[in-house]
């Protein structure tokens, strides 16, 4: 076992970032009591049949159509694809995966438990608007297990490439970090920042957080499971993984933060029973033939008193004239559709980059992960495949669908053949589960950059890691203003937190509120 990093080294490192007392002083938000996150109340003035063209059927479009239809507007939705939902896409037996140059048809067993959410997959409890519609439209939800401490962490650089349990990793990391912080509390500058009572509370928390011994040292924990015994016999601790060994992988950031609900990935999340597209179809079925499928938009012209949208249907160009238009076509596709948007609006539209992401999944012959004490959660792999998810539903059932790759921000699959993609995730997965390859049936892959009518995943606004530039904020505001009071851009591209259904729905609510205000102020 190697020596842990010395506390002095660690504290020097902290000092390099401004010092611990600076952090203490900066954190002055005591007394801050966040309110409950609540969905907006939509109360539109009833309309006597104003016509609305809605472009696309992502969740922002469906929300818009649903609310407007309830208020008496006459909505038509134009969808280029054969299916609604955009990036809310569930794959199950018979599903067509319409990837350009790589058409796939899912041939899994026809079983309601065997599905795969190829896009949106998780609903945090603070995403109130999504939950509001699930309730209103009677979409049954169940718990999604986002973190399992018995899942694995695998990195060729750590532990000779052999996987370690998430709990062995995270408990040890918590222990070492707590030990180092506990020791640093002895420093004079910290003493001057905290009262004696605060120090005691903090030390107590650190002892508990890291499972430190009386000397405030981390010497292993049974939280990581027992080395032996634990039920009929006293449990023994497992060997401690040295801090230096833990630091051999850069996966720490992923392993340690899956429980941060604020960014949307907490320990308790939800999913619709039977697939994320249950939400989409709950809307779509109610909207019925207001949705025109296989109807790609070919031109958008904003006029003085409305919008004219040309689209192709069965090889014929048709024109839809409407009073208003709500558009969730991805900006990068809208750039290729003739329009008469103002230059400033087009510039902003063209600025948004299409995000990269890909996923893969297979039907497992058996629920092999359950034999490894895993019931849901995520295994982290330091490879392009990044993640393996185990289905939290249908526990002890016969088969299950395993997410075999989820790379958010990568486009490797875009350039790979279907065979190479499959080989890639099998190769990495069998480092974690020796029988992985043998268990995998009928794999499918989703390369969002090549999905027909999408060509990308969550939009990316900020070009710099530091955050949004003033110019970007300005362009964002430009796109939030409707063109001539008639054309609204919606979807997560029109939000500052893309990739979440909640953002897309809120973008629709924002646009609807603007429309309602305009309609109400019209002369009677």
């Amino acid at each position, binding site marked *: 076992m190697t020596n842990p990093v010395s506390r002095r080294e660690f504290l020097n490192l902290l000092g390099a970032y401004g010092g611990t007392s600076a952090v203490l002083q900066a954190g002055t938000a005591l007394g801050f009591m966040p309110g409950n996150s609540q969905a907006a109340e939509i109360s539109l003035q009833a309309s006597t049949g104003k016509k609305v063209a809605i472009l696309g059927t992502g969740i922002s479009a469906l929300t818009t159509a649903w609310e407007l239809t309830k208020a008496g507007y006459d909505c038509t939705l134009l969808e280029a694809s054969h299916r609604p939902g955009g990036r809310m896409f569930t794959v199950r037996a018979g599903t067509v995966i319409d990837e*350009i*140059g790589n058409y796939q048809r899912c041939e899994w067993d026809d079983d309601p438990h065997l599905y795969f959410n190829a896009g949106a997959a998780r609903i945090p409890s603070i995403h109130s608007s999504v939950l509001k519609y699930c309730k209103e439209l009677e979409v049954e939800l169940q718990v999604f297990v986002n973190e399992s401490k018995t899942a694995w962490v695998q990195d060729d650089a750590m532990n000779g490439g052999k996987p370690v349990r998430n709990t062995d990793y995270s408990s040890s990391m918590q222990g070492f970090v707590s030990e180092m912080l506990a020791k640093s509390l002895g420093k004079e500058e910290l003493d001057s920042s905290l009262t004696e009572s605060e120090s005691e509370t903090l030390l107590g928390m650190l002892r508990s957080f890291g499972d430190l011994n009386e000397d405030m040292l981390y010497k292993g924990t049974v939280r990581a499971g027992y080395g032996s015994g634990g039920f009929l016999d006293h449990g023994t601790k497992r060997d401690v993984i040295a801090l230096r060994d833990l630091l051999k992988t850069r996966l720490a950031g992923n392993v340690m933060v899956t429980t941060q609900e604020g960014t949307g990935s907490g320990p308790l999340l939800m999913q619709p029973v039977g697939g994320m597209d249950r939400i989409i*179809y709950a809307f779509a*079925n*109610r909207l019925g033939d207001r949705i025109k499928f*296989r109807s790609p938009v070919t031109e958008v012209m904003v006029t003085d008193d409305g919008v004219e949208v040309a689209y192709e249907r069965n090889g014929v160009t048709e024109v839809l004239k409407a009073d208003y238009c709500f558009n969730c076509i991805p900006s990068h596709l809208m750039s*290729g559709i003739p329009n008469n948007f103002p230059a400033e609006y087009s510039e902003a539209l063209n600025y948004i980059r*299409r995000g990269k992401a890909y996923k893969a999944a297979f039907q497992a012959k058996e629920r092999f992960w359950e034999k490894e004490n895993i019931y849901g959660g995520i295994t982290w792999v330091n490879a392009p495949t990044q993640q393996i998810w185990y289905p939290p539903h249908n526990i002890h059932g016969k088969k299950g669908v395993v997410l075999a790759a989820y790379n958010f921000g990568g486009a490797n699959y875009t350039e790979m053949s279907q065979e190479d993609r499959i080989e890639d995730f099998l190769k990495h997965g069998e480092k974690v589960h020796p029988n992985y390859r043998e268990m995998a049936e009928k794999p499918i892959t989703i390369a969002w950059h090549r999905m027909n009518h999408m060509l990308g995943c969550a939009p990316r606004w900020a070009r710099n890691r530091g955050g949004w530039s003033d110019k970007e904020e300005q362009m964002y505001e430009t796109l939030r203003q409707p063109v001539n009071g008639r054309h609204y851009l919606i979807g997560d591209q029109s939000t500052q937190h893309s990739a979440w259904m909640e953002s897309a729905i809120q973008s629709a609510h924002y646009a609807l509120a603007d429309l309602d205000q305009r309609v109400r102020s019209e002369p009677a």
Partner: protein
Amino acid sequence: MKKLMTVTTLFISALCNIASQAAEGDVGVAADMGDRYCTTCHGVDGLGNIAIEAPRLAGMEAWYLKRQLENFRAGIRGTHGEDIQGIAMRPMAAKLSDESIADIVDWVGDWDFVPAEATVDGNVNQGRTAFQSCAACHGANAEGNEALGAPALAGQNDWYMITQLRNFRAGFRGSHQEDTYGSQMLTMSKTLRDEQAIINVVSYINTLQK
């Protein structure tokens, strides 16, 4: 009252549909497009899409389009690790049959040529001088010359031409040993000294009518 009735109707139709559609999963199968996927990236009527960095196909010569599709399919183009846009295109062409290529070339031929908007503003005079060596193959008005295998440039998206000139100069395009015409272009692109020279010559091409 009217509003209430609408809502009721919506719910009734919802109940009817759920049984027939939701259980099925998909509303329908993908439209039978064969391999006619081009417009998703290349824009309506192949007018090009800067956000995807996919150039205009409308107005492209049939013989040139055919050769490029075949080159992509064979890995002669779009396989250099630094040719980002070419790499994106290659898998689209990899599965095309001869018939599909003929069908696409035919289809693209239906689209009207509309010159692209200029997006760069270089020194046109300097560009004109530099263009003299281009004109030998591409024609004085950049109208293209099939006998020499040189495509028309006039009317093409300037941002695309800039990327391609950069790629030729750096050897990201045209360095495959079977890319006969590409290797000629690779040599010729070296006559453009730097980035500004590329922008100048493209700005001049923007002034030409096909």
